[in-house]
């Protein structure tokens, strides 16, 4: 946990002083950088889809009780925001690993995101099926 926190703080420094990224290691083949960029964009689209899902719950399920509707919408919006921030963090870490010629950093995030999305989907199915009774 502690090394992870230190890692996040280090990355935050990199966020605000990006010139340090260019000082590390060698510039990788541009094709690898572009692939990393596309991965970042794919994660960003995932984040946008989650944010859009949050708006959709708020818009298209007006029959739900206020608490459930707002809870589900905010959960999806929050997961979307986390996903967008994580996309940049991951992109920076991969870019730095490529510059240093290291392996790409391992990540638990896809598994966690999968679980969270499955949970939200399950709750949504239950809430929608139970409908007004829920």
């Amino acid at each position, binding site marked *: 946990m502690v090394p992870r926190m230190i890692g996040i703080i280090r990355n935050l420094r*990199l*966020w605000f002083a*990006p010139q340090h*990224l260019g000082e590390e290691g060698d*510039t*990788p*083949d*541009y*094709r*690898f*950088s*572009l*692939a*990393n*960029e*596309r991965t*970042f*964009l*794919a994660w*960003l*689209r995932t*984040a*946008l*889809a989650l*944010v*859009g899902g*949050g*708006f*959709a719950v*708020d*818009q298209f399920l007006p029959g739900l009780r206020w608490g459930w*509707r*707002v809870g589900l*919408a*905010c959960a999806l*919006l*929050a997961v*979307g*925001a986390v996903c*967008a*921030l994580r*996309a*940049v963090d991951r*992109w*920076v870490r991969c*870019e730095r690993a*490529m510059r240093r*010629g290291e392996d790409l950093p391992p990540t638990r995030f896809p598994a966690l995101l999968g679980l969270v999305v499955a949970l939200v989907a399950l709750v949504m199915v239950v809430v929608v099926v139970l409908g007004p009774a829920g």
Partner: protein
Amino acid sequence: MIGGTGEPPAAPGRDPGLQAERTRLAWRRTTLSAAVVAVLAVRTALREAPSSGAMAVGAACCALWLAFTALAHARVREIQDASARGSRIRSLALPVAAAVSLCTVATAACGMWLAV
């Protein structure tokens, strides 16, 4: 190991993987996703008897989408120009990556405000 496959670097003007084009299209797709979110945000903001606060948040979502699209378009142009000249495509700048991500986060925050 990066670049350790032994293949020579792609000659200028020849890009067998169409990396530049794929990256440009990825940016376009992402802008489209952002547009869908912006439309949903405006729809939410303008539902029954919108308050002036809700309208301001809806307008903010449009502004965020415009900022997102402007950043994406600048990057698309950068990639296009570099590949047309046959020069090396510079990797994405961190402030640009952070800015598009923060646009998404801000849109999510607007959504929370509108939902509550």
